[in-house]
């Protein structure tokens, strides 16, 4: 199905109008507006019949521009390579919208966030609790409305934290609020009987830094990549790339070929170091410190190389709207290739030794099972999805940068357990090595940056997905007039993956809980961007 056919279908079935003015009118991207009465029908058709995968929703306060709130649900069709934005306008007098969570369970968090941040109530949502805002944040103060200033600090107040009580006969084992083995703020309350986990409650979003608000009220277009990179401490480059691509799409900027290749190389370097980092931490969590020490030793040359290229131990500061700021000169190519050769040799040896390690296999095989159906239903992404046999990879399904010119395959394993997720990452590191070699070989000469002489016009939308080491990063941008976006909505992959953790933990062994959680490679800070939460076991809304 092409985007044109999709537009016609949506028009006929649900009176969906194509948006205007539209930065998304290129093959692979479509943006439509559906009125709120037909929204549920349209979502049901997309989700149940047309095979669309839910990404995220974004609420925008457009009362100045159009006198409305705008709710945008983003979807992806991976077989046909289509990204779809479904807009619904909401009357400020009656700020509510029918909730899509009963149809699309994966929309649970993002709809609660919509209520917290914009004040548009998803009617019929199964969970009335706050997601992002602190429990003592004042009622009727919605941070992402344009007339709420950036940087306000309401005084703290006493309040009751809505916590889920443990099931009868079980006791609570806390993992957090400072996650002990990942050293990040996340709070799992595990309900335990003996050594078995019978349920879990998640509370997160402690690490809100107001990044979206900052992007829409204080920063300018070219300052945002700097902040976007700091959404994550490990995979920053994916965020700045996704943001820049979204803005470039909105403004119709074509970036030079060489810049596309450089972005590809930066992203793959990042994937390699991230997967090595993950493997080390996974080893540490199952008490196998030798894995931690050896993989981090193997990872070190990647960091040195990044430092050589960008001045930072990770490739930061490379992206800018219109291209890249750092070049990869020919003199450095040999260094990169040498590093890759060494890493490949060591990685292959490691790969060979893992299946032979019976006690490691005893910890990984058959533990942390995420069934294929659950993975599809909750729209998990990245190695977490591919470890459960869901063959999605943004690099191939929705090509960006230079990926459409490189030869590679999706790494999919269908064991649905910790072992499969580990193997996916082991495979992907080898794929990354191959990708960088190809990119270096094919990279054309030329400029690395398109000069942008005119201002970026307001009122356009742009939307981009990037395959981060942890899964698909999505950035959605609505351009504005003051040299900054009206709304910028990043979604980290962990936002999608973390929602599936409580149902997955149920029935597992307590000893496996840390590795089960860590096998998703969660990045809590990425997910948090914002303020406080809870999450529950699935039976509450099933």
């Amino acid at each position: 199905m092409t985007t044109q056919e999709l537009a016609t279908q949506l028009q006929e079935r649900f009176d969906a109008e194509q948006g205007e003015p539209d930065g998304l009118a290129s093959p692979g991207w479509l943006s439509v507006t559906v009125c709120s009465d037909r929204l549920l029908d349209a979502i049901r058709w997309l989700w149940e019949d047309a095979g669309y995968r839910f990404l995220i929703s974004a609420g925008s306060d457009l009362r100045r521009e159009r006198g409305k709130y705008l709710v945008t649900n983003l979807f992806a069709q991976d077989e046909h390579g289509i990204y779809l934005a479904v807009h619904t306008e909401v009357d400020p007098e009656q700020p509510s919208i029918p909730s899509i969570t009963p149809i699309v369970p994966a929309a649970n968090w993002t709809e609660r966030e919509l209520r917290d941040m914009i004040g548009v109530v998803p009617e019929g949502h199964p969970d009335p609790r706050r997601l992002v805002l602190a429990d003592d944040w004042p009622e009727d103060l919605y941070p992402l409305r344009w007339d709420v200033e950036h940087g306000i600090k309401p005084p703290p107040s006493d309040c009751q934290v809505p916590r889920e009580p443990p099931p009868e006969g079980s006791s609570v084992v806390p993992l957090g609020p400072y996650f002990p083995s990942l050293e990040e703020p996340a709070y799992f309350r595990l309900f335990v009987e003996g050594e078995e986990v019978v349920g879990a409650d998640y509370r997160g979003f402690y690490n809100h830094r107001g990044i979206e608000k900052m992007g829409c009220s204080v920063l300018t277009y070219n300052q945002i990549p700097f902040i976007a990179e700091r959404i994550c401490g490990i995979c920053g480059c994916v965020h700045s790339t996704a943001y820049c691509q979204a803005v470039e799409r909105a403004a119709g900027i074509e970036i030079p070929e060489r810049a596309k290749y450089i972005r590809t190389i930066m992203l793959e370097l990042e994937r390699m170091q991230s997967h090595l980092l993950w493997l080390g931490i996974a080893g540490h969590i199952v008490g196998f410190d030798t894995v931690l020490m050896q993989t981090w030793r193997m990872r070190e040359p990647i960091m040195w190389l990044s430092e050589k290229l960008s001045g930072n131990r990770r490739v930061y500061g490379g992206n800018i709207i219109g291209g890249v700021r750092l070049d990869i000169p020919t003199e450095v190519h040999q260094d990169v290739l040498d590093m890759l050769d060494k890493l490949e040799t060591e990685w292959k040896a490691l790969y060979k030794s893992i299946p032979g390690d019976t006690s490691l296999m005893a910890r990984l095989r058959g533990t942390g099972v995420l069934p294929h159906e659950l993975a599809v239903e909750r729209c998990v992404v990245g190695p977490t999805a591919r470890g459960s046999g869901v063959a999605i990879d943004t690099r191939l399904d929705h090509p960006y940068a230079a990926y459409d010119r490189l030869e590679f395959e999706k790494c999919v394993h269908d064991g649905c357990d910790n072992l499969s997720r580990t193997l996916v990452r082991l495979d992907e590191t080898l794929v990354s090595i191959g990708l960088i070699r190809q990119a270096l070989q094919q990279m054309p000469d030329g400029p690395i940056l398109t000069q942008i002489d005119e201002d970026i016009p307001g009122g356009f939308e742009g939307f981009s997905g990037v395959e981060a080491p942890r899964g698909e990063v999505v950035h959605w941008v609505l351009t504005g007039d003051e040299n900054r976006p009206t709304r910028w909505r990043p979604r980290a992959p962990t936002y999608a993956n973390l929602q599936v953790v409580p149902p997955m933990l149920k029935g597992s062994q307590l000893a496996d809980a840390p590795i089960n959680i860590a096998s998703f490679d969660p990045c809590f800070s990425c997910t948090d961007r914002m303020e406080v939460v809870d999450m529950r076991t699935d039976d509450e809304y099933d």
Partner: protein
Amino acid sequence: MAGYESGLKVTQMTLALNLVIALLLGPLMAGVVRKFVRARLHSRQGPPVLQPFYDICKLLGKEDLRSSSSPIVDFAPIVVMAATITAALLTPMGMRSPLAGHGDLIVFVNLVTIAVVGTVMVGLSSASPYSLIGAAREIMMHIMVEPVLVICLIVAAVKAQSLLFWHMAEGATAGGMSISMVIATIAMLMAMQAQIGKQPFDIAEAETEVMGGAFVELSGPRLALFQWASFARQIVYASMLAAIFIPWGIDLAPPWNLGAHLLKLLGVYVLVGIVDVVHPRIRVEQAIKFFVIIIVLSLIGLGLAIGGY
């Protein structure tokens, strides 16, 4: 009378010797293994060899903070340390042990159990869920591992026709290796790995799961005593293994018999250290399954020993 006096002298000397080995060589050996086995296999520099001493000294000098008013927290560290030291005095360490004539296998097993029970009691006296889980795991592991230890020692006792360790050690050296003793040695090695909480059996204290288990609420001097006792316990087990199940060198003239013992200890420590480095932690129910097999194995060994093999 002359014989009595010289016997007394030997006892005093070995008393000092066993104390030094348990309290000082214990931490030192741990430091050596950390630096030259663990760190090398990790491609690391590793901490100084004397790091275990630095840790103990630092902890001993800290404020005595406590999270529970239970008297158990007062007494347990002392009881655990005392039980471990007494067990050390029963253990032949190259020479005849100072309490050789005063306690046998049965006393030793009870002393070891007292040390474990002390740890468990401390864990249970805290309100922390990690501590409770750690204590539960500790006792589960002990229930599975203690029979192995006992059966293996009984194998040696059967071979020597005595419950006294010195007789077992001499008997094993004189009699050479037999099938039953080989089996017992293997089972004893496995049991030791679990008794001293090394991978793959670092289950009770699992840092990334239960934050040190029973010890999570302890700090300062009390934690220091537990750590020190744990180093001493390692050397007691290693000595038991070296003296009785590696039958060589005990009949050499002093001080060569002591030298031989230290050499065997080093071998045991390096072996344990390597096994520790190349394994992840397994789950408690996997460990229990494993030790069921080991118990059966050691029972077979016992049967063979009774049958004279």
